[in-house]
């Protein structure tokens, strides 16, 4: 099957990559662009490990065709740290010892960034529902919730 040219921005860099019509955005990121931070835990949109942002909104990249990202801005976990400095959420996850096996973490962090963008001062419930689409089997979620709440509380007021 002939490949198609996908032009979009990924982590603030313009990219052009050849993809198959049936490739998912996750396939394109992982196999073509070698951004392997987003993970495939199920391939059916149930586990959240593949979560990336498209135009600022969290999506399950395993459910979106790569060509649907044409002309759009994609942010993956690799683009979250700003020139080497960890994002406050990443920093809180490290300090509080959240990651265990680590497989779900890129997706959870992308979901958490979206939660804080929508609710800069989230309630416990907003955090819980905000990452309810992300399965984690190691942590029992407690340290995750604490880390997200702490990062939100530490952020300057009005920060989106």
């Amino acid at each position: 099957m002939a490949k198609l040219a996908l032009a979009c921005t990924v982590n603030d860099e313009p990219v052009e990559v050849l993809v198959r019509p049936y490739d998912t955005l996750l396939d394109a990121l992982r196999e073509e662009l070698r951004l392997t931070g987003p993970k495939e835990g199920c391939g059916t949109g149930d586990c959240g490990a593949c979560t990336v942002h498209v135009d600022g909104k969290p999506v399950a990249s395993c459910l979106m065709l790569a060509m649907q990202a044409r002309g759009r801005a994609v942010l993956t976990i690799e683009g979250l740290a700003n020139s080497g400095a960890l994002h406050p959420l990443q920093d809180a996850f490290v300090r509080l010892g959240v990651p265990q096996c680590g497989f779900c973490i890129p997706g959870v962090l992308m979901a958490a960034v979206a939660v804080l963008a929508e609710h800069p001062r989230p309630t416990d419930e907003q955090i819980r529902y905000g990452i309810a689409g992300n399965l984690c089997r190691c942590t029992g979620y407690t340290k995750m919730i604490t880390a997200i709440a702490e990062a939100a509380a530490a952020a300057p007021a009005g920060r989106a």
Partner: protein
Amino acid sequence: MATVMKTTREVKGVGLAIPRPDGPEKVTGGTEYVADLKPKGMLHAKLLRSPHAHARIKRIDTSKAKALPGVRAVLTAKDIPTLKRKAPTRAHAVLAIDRVVFVGQPVAAVAADEPAIAEEALDLIAVEYEVLPAAVDPLASMQPGAPPVAEAGTEADTSEALAHSGVAAAKSEAGPPRAVNISQQVKLQRGDVAKAFGESDVVIEKTYRVPMVHQGYLEPHAVLAQWDTNGLLTLWASTQGSFNTRSEVADILGLEENQVRVIPVECGGGFGGKIRALCEPITAALAKATGRPVRYVMTRREELEAGNPAPQVIIKLKTGVKRDGTLMALDADTIVESGAFSGAVLTMSAVFLASVYKWPNFEVRGFEVLTHKPSIAAYRAPTAPHTFFAVDSQMELLARELGVDAVEFRLRHLIVEGDAMANGQKWQSNGAKEVLRRIAEHPLWRNRAAWSAQSGKDGHGLCGTGLALGGWIPGLQPTGATVRLNPDGSLSVLTGQVDIAGTNIALAQIAATAYGLDIDKIRITTGDTDVAPMTGLSAGSKTIYTVGTAVLEAAKDARKQTLEIAAKEMEAAVEDLEIEDGRVVVRGVPDKGVTLASIGKKGNLYMSKVPPVLGVSHPAFAVQAPAFAAELARIEVDPDTGQTTIHDFVVVQDAGKAINPLGVEGQMQGGAVQSIGIALTEAMMYDKDGRLMNPSLLDYRKLTAADLPNIETIIVEVPAPAGPFGARGVGEPPIVPAPAALANAVHDATGVRLTELPLSPERIALAIAARQ
């Protein structure tokens, strides 16, 4: 061995709550898992799997698949000459030979340039099956005349039991199998059961059922295989034990162990499900056939349909007590459904049934039963959540019937150090009593009556509180470690330990304290099977207890060598020396000293007479350290829908010594939530033909952050006499108590006793309705 090193200054090591060093890589997406590896020329593997639970393979035609452009190899059983009809384990049944015994069993394998081509090739393989009757229900499968699962004469597989737990199967008395699908039997007895029941005032008899559940690791099984021109096979594997994977793969493919190198890649969760080889042998065979690196990543559907989940366990439990609370007799059957291949940890279930509380008279019969379903494997404390669900539900029922305090009743009858377990083994010291006492002191327990009184008020549903005890007897396995002093004065710790639970930071902390050097000067590496000392499985709650001991002894060895070199140089006695702030000094004379860096450098210099410091330890073990947790749930049940909401959940656990409290808490919280999942939502549901009806994460319901409260953790430290700094295993205990704790809480809230898991809204609502 629980010596505390004498240092003049407290070293940053054991006991500090410090984050794992791999955190930054994990939060930035940098950590690589098998599916992230992509060497040049790599092919993708896919397996054709059986659609039938039991069928004879009459014919397989792969010619069309082989002709598809981009397909590099198509294999069936006849292409792998080492395969045996009587596969001794599931791993040996790489491809079905002429009979399939579960839905999802691999029948043919394809390696192709792209995953989509491999998928297309699967569609082009024609298999003609003759469908045979299937044994799907374990109770029916135990009966004479049930459709046979194993080839006649296949031996039972008890290796998992031995790997996971030190409880010897040899002590149990096994009778001859009484039906074709009973693959293991144990019987434990003591005293006169019939007489003791005759003298009992209260007899309670219940049947407890726990369905098959999946370990649920987020990373599906994956492996990358490549052969070199010398016939050396390298596997990049997601495994809980690289040395075990090496042995299994070598055995299955007819290789020497030294022809296989296993490189353990970051394991995206295992929980017991990534101990046994599963996709490694077939991937290696495809790599051999194509001469190319081949990567195989299981899909989530394959994981659920054809992984190696936890067994269904059915326990028939009858207990008799005197009105004054004296335990009299216990009679039990534990039926462990192993799926299509033997391998269940049967003995643990049988032993725990009659060992946790002191029954003077008991008879326990254990059966491992084969069915036409995917074979099972370990899942964190294999069979213990199931068994304690029965044991601690029953203790609660007895206490209620007798009108005595449920905690006091347990404490009165708990087995204590020196008592004989049901299999005759001596019970070792542990913190079971302490965790029960601590949880009973918790305000949520002390104020449970006030919470119950909220039922029906202010919009509340039915309110209740429950607790239970659970534990594990960790496994033992020989292991090894080295500790090396570097020219910069830092230490390198090397083991082959796969870090699935944050154990590497804890092992480094042990080295820090044992040697006398701060943790930030210590780097720990997990080596592959070509470079690391032999290291046991990361399973059975034994990593810190066994590998931690090896690291402790290797660090002490390195310290001794360091001090001996310094003693010569300083013309001082070894006994007078101390390691302080990266220097060896004479105790009390801090000005006189040599730096560790100078000692490390001398061991590296050309023509130097100073040997390099290399501490080595490779111990074997004999004494186990049982590990216990107690869990408490404060819940609310909606009387109309049966929905259970957990408001608070507490884990109290004896860690012996929490080497890294942050890691211990993580284990407690994660284990508790898996335990709650078994209790409330998880079940693999099969139809009458042996097909899984919920093979997706939408329908196989794992708990999310929105389903749970924060998990409160309380660490208790009752030192394990032979553990490093007193540490005992922490991985498994927290997955054990929640099923009984929640069944007890639901009983407290609703007045109905449920004995079948999960405690789904439907079951609870129907039970409430049936009582009204």
